[in-house]
């Protein structure tokens, strides 16, 4: 591959441009009118404006993006995460125009994008799945299925992702109340209002396994990530490896992830998400057929550049790693710094970054597209940057992250920094035993963190 069009914006577009530059691959950025002065626009070798600010007319506009790729002579398209990264039609259109889509095939995206079908395939392959239903056909079906599963239940969108169209219901009344809003949200976000039910596991942890697979049937896992620290189903902090899990459970998770990837003949980089209950039982939730936001923690601990590997695999190179070559060293933590305070009812507020001081020193990595004077556009997600810290063990990684969070200054916009600093001081978090309920409980206990 000689020239890659980066079909994304923000920190992930920069991440891909950096990988390409190190691989001596030229880059073509796309940008919306709101991102004319964005770093990805100015850092790429070439940049093409593909539409006005709203994502549907720019970063999701397949025709303009493909036209830009063809006109600029790109031979590959990297979709990053979000936007078109899981769009089967886009992957197919790329292939039809002789462009390498850096991800799995459109068939994979279609299968894994249908969360209910993906679960059925995994179950058939012997991977434990969360008890749940097929697509809900009516309110009667909804209530009857929920009673069978037992409350609390989780209502999820078939084509969902990023927590959209997802609702928790403690009882029948609440379930009936959230049914319509969840469907409306799913329709608005994914043009598909089909929803299904899942049993809600109390005290469960969200642990995912990173996978790499080539086009020749070779697949390895690159360890797990702990992603339980979430607010409204949005991850705020991730760790690698997951703290407080036994070597035996870790091995079983890795084996199940490989089993799942083989069952769908997976290609490229992907992630199997599991929920792990307090007894150590785990269940497949979904497979993300793309690069994950939190990939840097794995990179630091395993010494693998996941973006470069993705590009190599998409170019048809065989996997460069065997399972035995992949062993973890140390511990890494990532804080997602958002333009939003973590508090009940908080919303991202656009603004201008008036002052920015970026942390550095041993073990610190800052993946971000912001700069002093950067105006946070209201059209896209609220991620300002990812602060990642590495240490020889979890204790050292925690200390490193604490001091990096102290060094980081972002003024002019609201941020989640106060929340992250407070979580790093929390005893339960430091002990490493926290579940997906942590942030909700923590917010209920503490005063509003601004």
């Amino acid at each position: 591959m000689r020239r890659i069009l980066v079909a994304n914006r923000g920190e992930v577009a920069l991440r891909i441009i950096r990988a390409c530059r190190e691989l001596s691959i030229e880059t073509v950025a796309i940008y919306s009118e709101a991102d004319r002065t964005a770093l990805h626009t100015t850092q790429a070798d070439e940049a093409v404006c593909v539409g006005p600010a709203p994502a549907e007319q720019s970063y999701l506009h397949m025709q303009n993006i493909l036209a830009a790729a063809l006109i600029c002579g790109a031979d590959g398209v990297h979709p990053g995460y979000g936007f078109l990264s899981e769009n089967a039609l886009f992957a197919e259109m790329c292939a039809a125009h002789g462009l390498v889509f850096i991800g799995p095939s459109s068939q994979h995206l279609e299968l894994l994008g249908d969360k209910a079908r993906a679960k059925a395939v995994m179950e058939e392959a012997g991977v434990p799945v969360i008890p749940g239903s097929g697509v809900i056909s009516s309110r009667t079906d909804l209530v009857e299925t929920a009673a069978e599963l037992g409350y609390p239940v989780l209502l999820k969108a078939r084509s969902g992702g990023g927590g959209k169209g997802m609702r928790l219901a403690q009882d029948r009344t609440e379930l009936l109340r959230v049914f319509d809003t969840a469907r409306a949200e799913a329709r608005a976000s994914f043009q598909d209002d089909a929803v299904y039910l899942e049993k809600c596991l109390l005290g469960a942890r969200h642990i995912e396994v990173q996978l790499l697979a080539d086009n020749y049937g070779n697949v390895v896992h690159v360890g797990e990530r702990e992603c339980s620290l979430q607010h409204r189903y949005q991850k705020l902090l991730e760790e690698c490896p997951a703290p407080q899990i036994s070597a035996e459970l870790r091995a079983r998770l890795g084996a199940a992830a490989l089993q799942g990837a083989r069952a769908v003949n997976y290609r490229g980089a992907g992630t199997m998400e599991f929920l792990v209950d307090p007894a150590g039982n785990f269940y497949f939730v979904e497979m993300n057929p793309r690069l994950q936001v939190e990939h840097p923690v794995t990179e630091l601990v395993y010494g693998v550049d996941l973006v470069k590997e993705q590009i190599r695999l998409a170019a048809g190179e065989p996997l460069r790693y065997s399972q035995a070559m992949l062993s973890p060293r140390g511990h890494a933590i990532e804080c997602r710094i958002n333009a939003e305070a973590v508090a009940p009812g908080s919303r991202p507020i656009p603004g201008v970054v008036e002052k920015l001081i970026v942390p550095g020193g041993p073990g610190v990595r800052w993946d971000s597209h912001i700069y002093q004077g950067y105006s946070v556009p209201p059209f896209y997600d609220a991620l300002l940057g990812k602060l990642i810290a590495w240490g020889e063990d979890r204790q050292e990684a925690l200390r490193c992250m604490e001091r990096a969070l102290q060094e980081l200054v972002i003024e002019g916009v609201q941020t989640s920094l106060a929340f992250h600093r407070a979580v790093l001081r929390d005893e339960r978090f430091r002990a490493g035993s926290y579940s997906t309920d942590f942030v909700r409980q923590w917010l209920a206990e503490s005063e509003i963190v601004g």
Partner: protein
Amino acid sequence: MDFEQIKALIQLVDSSGITEFELEGGDLRLRIRKASTPAQPPAAVPPGAQLEPVAAPMVGTFYRSPAPDAPPFVQEGDAVSPGQVLCVIEAMKMMNEIEAELSGVVRQILVADGQPVEYGQVLMLIERRA
């Protein structure tokens, strides 16, 4: 041939009506081509005229005519009315006709035939006429 001679030749070609000059002899091959000048000077814009930009509504390749051997849709100085085709933008093998949205006179065509254009790029300037 030395530097001074080449310089003299360039000046000679420059002051003449020749647009391209080629000289070959022995192991020397020299070609002098004049920088292309617009075929016609931009149509005069009366002072106080209101120029409206025509922006590309999509990413693609700009064409001034419907086919390589066909005459252009419009020339500088042409009067246009709403709905009249000004140019096409080819995107994904689809020819998208770009129409005038107002009545006026084409004052300037800013993109050369066959050039790629990005979203929002100004293609032409049209002087609005009531």
